[in-house]
């Protein structure tokens, strides 16, 4: 599991890669939690290279998304692979979390160019 991040004025980009399981979920909770702390408005998790996630990782997504929402922010996810998307849908995460087809669509919706320039 790796998490690479980029903090922009309007949003924080986090690219999550590899496998998130019971052994790596604690590290993810720490890293994503830290990013949520420094994110003012929106945290976008790019899942294009996320090959595997189990309930321990999904629990982290839920905790971070709740925390961001409580603080008036947003935690969104983009580029889910079909397997990961199926898992999200099975536990109803597609209804409670903001999901985007790909990074371009997510950026357009969360931080449109004019907002970035402003």
């Amino acid at each position, binding site marked *: 599991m790796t998490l690479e991040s980029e903090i922009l004025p309007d949003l924080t980009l986090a690219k999550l890669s590899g496998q998130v399981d019971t*052994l790596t979920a604690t590290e993810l909770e720490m890293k994503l939690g830290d990013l949520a702390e420094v994110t003012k408005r929106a945290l976008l998790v790019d899942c294009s290279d996320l090959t595997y996630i*189990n309930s321990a990782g999904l629990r982290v997504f839920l905790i971070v998304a*709740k925390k961001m929402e409580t603080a008036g922010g947003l935690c969104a996810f983009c580029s889910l692979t079909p*397997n990961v998307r199926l898992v999200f849908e099975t*536990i109803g995460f597609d209804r409670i*979390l903001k999901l985007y087809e790909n990074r371009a669509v997510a950026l357009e919706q969360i931080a449109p160019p004019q907002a970035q320039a402003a």
Partner: protein
Amino acid sequence: MRPGSLSTKLNVHLRETELVGKIVREFGQWHDVPEQTVFLVKLSLDELVTNIVVHSAGQIPCVREIVLRLTTNQHELWAEVEDDGCAFNPLDLPIPDVAAPLQDRSPGGLGIHLVRSLMDRVNYKRIGQRNLLVLSKKVTQSSAVELP
């Protein structure tokens, strides 16, 4: 898929979930199991083995061994997880409310809900001093090449 079976013993440790993933992936390759079925079975077994290891910690007697079996025929894959711990049926755990709004969602119970939803059948049996969970998943599309 190619018919076959595999049986192995696991140590009672969370690190073994990594090995479970490897076993399912390799078993899938040898038996032409479609990629999505491999993913779903790997996830289900990961959740069940994690549950057994975590619940074993406070039990007397604790779990000393976990046995994993995988079987395929042309159209279906079965997985069995057996342990020698106290009677523990994870299917008795409460079902999370997956329709609740974000702030009302509890992070617990997601694993067993995934297993129940992603497999076609999940059964629990207590046999003597052992717990047995049997999962099955039908496979519709096959990556196997039909020979003339």
